[in-house]
């Protein structure tokens, strides 16, 4: 499988480590009153869709950047790839 890296072009998937659901970016606020429940969900509850899934990939044997890869788990088609730093910067802005 080739992953189209936003900076470096198509790269061999063996250079990457998959770290699961991209929801990991949204770490709950530990100071919130419902923090315990939010952290329970954050740490233990995951969707496991058969289809389009947003995942975090780490370019471990490459430039060591974190990517958000939108991938179809049934066909392995890669729909979109963004730098995770861009994704969280956009999110910060929209808050």
């Amino acid at each position, binding site marked *: 499988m080739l992953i189209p890296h936003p*900076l*470096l*072009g198509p*790269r*061999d998937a*063996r*250079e990457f480590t998959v770290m699961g659901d991209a929801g990991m970016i949204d770490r709950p606020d530990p100071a919130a009153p419902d923090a315990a429940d939010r952290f329970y969900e954050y740490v233990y509850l995951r969707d496991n869709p058969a289809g389009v899934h947003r995942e975090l990939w780490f370019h*471990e*044997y*490459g*430039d*060591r*950047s974190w990517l958000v890869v939108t991938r179809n788990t049934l066909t392995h088609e890669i729909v979109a790839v963004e*730098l995770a*730093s861009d994704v969280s910067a956009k999110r910060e802005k929209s808050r």
Partner: protein
Amino acid sequence: MADLEADFAIGDKSPAGIETGLLRITERSDMSIASLALRKGTPVPQPFGLSLPGPGEWVSEDTNCVLWVGPGQWFVLARRYADEELASELKASFPSCSVTEQTDGWVVIDIECPAGDEVFAEMLARLANIDPDKLIQGRCVRTLLHHLGCHLVRLGPRSLRILGARSSAGSLWHAIETVAVNLDCRFPVR
């Protein structure tokens, strides 16, 4: 105190080297390396007066070079007796950057291929799973070479520099040596 003598990264008392009919492979013992990382909102440094290169690129001035290794991070290589002074000098020049000594962590191996472009392309293809047409002069890439994470730097039309982890320098050398021997079989001297 015992009188200790340091071995070179590949393990000999002198830098390792092989010359086959096609390739000249040399362990460099005259490279100092430091990494340079930008902090948010700080001025962009120009080590040796060089503008920091973009993704997948490297630039050089005299015998010094700077290669891009990741977003906001570069390796600075200076050709001189391998010591740890480079990092302190960079930190003094660019105090707002994060600078880390790297000389101790890496082995630098240069490969020259006077035998021609075809042999060079075949060597690249056997070393790593990258597109040899994209690793042109002025470009560098970090990838896997026989399961070892390495930086490949295209120094010239027929020369390549490999930076690998010093702790597995022997395995890296073995991998390169194997490719060199196999290339000799693939391109026998007529």
